[in-house]
């Protein structure tokens, strides 16, 4: 785990003091809301449907137990005893009082956390692979590079007022667990001739105009990574469409320029930027990398798992993944109990996960973009004890990547931009498909719901996606099929006319029935869809 150095501490402490003063002046009536709003947004404080909402950054989704406990503490003391883990690997609190915000930021700072750059037209929290440092298929841990990008982008003066928000993801495995190509910049650490380098995909994103990032450069030596990122951003900062908020993301610029022309401009800029000496000396990078040194895991730990408890065995098969060190495993904790609210966890559950991490996972936890939690380094011999503790707290739903493991944005229950509610739709779908045998029969099926076109719930990237729209003042849901946020990235296609809440659940059942009728051996839902196309599904849905 990265530990703050004196600069990190000083920066965060200075910001807490500054914001505390701004809050005081706002409460005293010395500044207006128009003056205050940009200041609070710079500190992750939004005004939502029922109260202020605070978004806390979890850098590349990695937390230690102490930080996780602080998240529980904040939920308990200042909110309503729960938090919402998001697709951006962050946590949001829905019931924050303005007068409490300075104390919360102080509490966060005490465990090396903050809410800076979780809003606004700046470089946002860097996302990454939730299995980083543990995945059997990674070529290296991507987080030291993500941390380097975090340091470079924090308070970057040139990139504090970009044309629009900017999101970066870093992965280091061929399996993409971070929706890398749906970010403004997606970086994949790759290997060429025994050297590691960064492949840059630039200009992806969802929202109103979803786009898959094209490859801009297949291999940037890692010693040039920051300079190359700087060049990518400079070209965007100069030419991004500040005149039109709907066209202001980098994806539009690259789409309009064409990837080749954008690349040419970046290369030209890079030649200049490289002379500025932005990339850190190797010793500094090594200092960061050292802090992500793998925990001391005993590779001779027993590899066998006692599967005599059938419920445990079901959970192991679905929620436990291969670790790179023998005798160990990656535990995926589903925050998707059937009928529950995707991504929500109570203070007690957050505390319990922190305790389990401390006891069984070398003090580490991860937040996933699918709104689940990971214990990355668990001995196989400890899995049963972990499962029992999770099960006792309603955290052992064995549904990872199944149809009930739904991503859902807060939607109209909490979000002021929403057109329709997302959560009740997720609850109804999970309940309709609650039978685990049926879910397993359907296999990997990623269902993602957004309550409006902003696509916080990744609906374009769902094997099945749902988009809430407003039809003459009533909630209506469009259905999309065939998207993916993984290495087989694709954008979903709308099936046709939308549905009401119950109608969309029925439609999904017709879609999954059709899939079962059409599929060939070994095909996932999305594979069958790609092979047979939309027509049979449309026919099944609309008759």
């Amino acid at each position, binding site marked *: 785990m990265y530990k703050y150095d004196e600069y990190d501490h000083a920066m965060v402490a200075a910001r807490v003091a500054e914001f505390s003063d701004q809050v005081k002046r*706002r*409460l005293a*009536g010395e500044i*207006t*809301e128009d003056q205050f709003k940009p200041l609070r947004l710079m500190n992750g404080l939004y*005004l*939502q*449907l*029922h*109260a*202020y909402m605070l978004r806390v950054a979890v850098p590349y989704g990695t937390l230690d137990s102490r930080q996780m406990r602080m998240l529980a503490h904040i939920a308990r003391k200042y909110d*309503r005893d729960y938090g919402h883990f998001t697709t951006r690997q962050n946590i949001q609190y829905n*019931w*924050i*009082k*303005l*007068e409490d915000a300075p104390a919360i930021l102080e509490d966060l700072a005490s465990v090396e956390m903050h809410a800076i750059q979780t809003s606004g037209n700046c470089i946002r929290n860097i996302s990454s692979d939730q299995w980083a440092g543990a995945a059997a298929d990674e070529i290296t841990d991507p987080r030291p590079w993500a941390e380097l990008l975090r340091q470079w982008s924090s308070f970057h003066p040139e990139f504090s007022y970009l044309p629009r928000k900017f999101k970066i993801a870093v992965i280091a495995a061929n399996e993409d667990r971070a929706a890398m190509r749906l970010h403004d910049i997606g970086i994949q650490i790759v290997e060429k001739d025994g050297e590691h380098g960064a492949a840059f995909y630039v200009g992806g994103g969802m929202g109103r105009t979803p786009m898959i990032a094209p490859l801009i450069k297949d291999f940037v030596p890692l010693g040039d990574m920051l300079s190359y990122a700087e060049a990518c951003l400079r070209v965007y900062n100069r030419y991004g469409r500040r005149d039109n908020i709907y066209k202001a993301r980098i994806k539009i610029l690259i789409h309009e320029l064409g990837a080749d022309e954008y690349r040419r401009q970046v290369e030209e800029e890079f030649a200049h930027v490289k002379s500025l000496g932005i990339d850190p000396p190797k010793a500094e990078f090594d200092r960061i990398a050292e802090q992500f040194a793998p925990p001391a895991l005993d590779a001779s730990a027993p590899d066998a798992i006692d599967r005599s408890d059938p419920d445990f065995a079901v959970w192991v098969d679905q929620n436990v993944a291969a670790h790179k060190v023998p005798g160990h495993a990656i535990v995926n904790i589903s925050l998707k109990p059937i009928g529950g*609210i995707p991504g929500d966890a109570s203070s007690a559950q957050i505390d319990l996960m922190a305790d389990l991490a401390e006891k069984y996972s070398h003090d580490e936890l991860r937040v996933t973009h699918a709104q689940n939690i990971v214990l990355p380094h668990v001995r196989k011999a400890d899995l049963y004890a972990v499962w029992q503790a999770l099960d006792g707290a309603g955290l052992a739903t064995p549904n990872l990547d199944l149809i009930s493991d739904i991503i859902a944005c807060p939607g*109209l*229950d*909490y979000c*002021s931009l*929403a057109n329709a*509610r997302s*959560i*009740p739709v997720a*609850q109804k779908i999970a309940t309709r498909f609650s039978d685990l045998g049926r879910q397993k029969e359907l296999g990997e099926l990623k269902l993602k719901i957004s309550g409006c076109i902003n696509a916080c719930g990744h609906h374009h990237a769902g094997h099945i996606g749902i988009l809430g729209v407003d039809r003459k*003042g*009533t*909630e209506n849901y469009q259905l999309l099929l065939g998207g993916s946020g993984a290495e087989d990235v694709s954008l979903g296609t709308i099936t046709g006319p939308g549905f009401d809440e119950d109608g969309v659940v029925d439609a999904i059942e017709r879609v999954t029935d059709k899939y079962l009728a059409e599929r060939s051996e070994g095909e996932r839902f999305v594979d069958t869809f790609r092979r047979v196309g939309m027509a049979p599904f449309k026919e099944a849905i609309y008759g």
Partner: protein
Amino acid sequence: MKLLTGNDLKTGFVTWWTGADWSLHIEDAADVGEHGEAILAVEEAARRVNAPYIIAGEQTADGPRPAHIKDRIRALGPTVRPDLTLKPADPAAGDWVI
């Protein structure tokens, strides 16, 4: 009817203009008729409310109700957490929201 709503500066809670003050309860809301803009200007300047706006509402036997679903949800609380609404003890409290 026209209603005035916003959020309390300190807590962020949803509030409704009662004709004299702000209340958490939609039942207390007053019809502001044509005077919405003028009241907003005064109240916002006095910083008694955050991000205020005027909405359409309708009078019912149980009191005023916002016309649009978003403000109906604001008026009571999240539909998925009845325990966190203004009337957690009343299972029928949300019947008019959706």
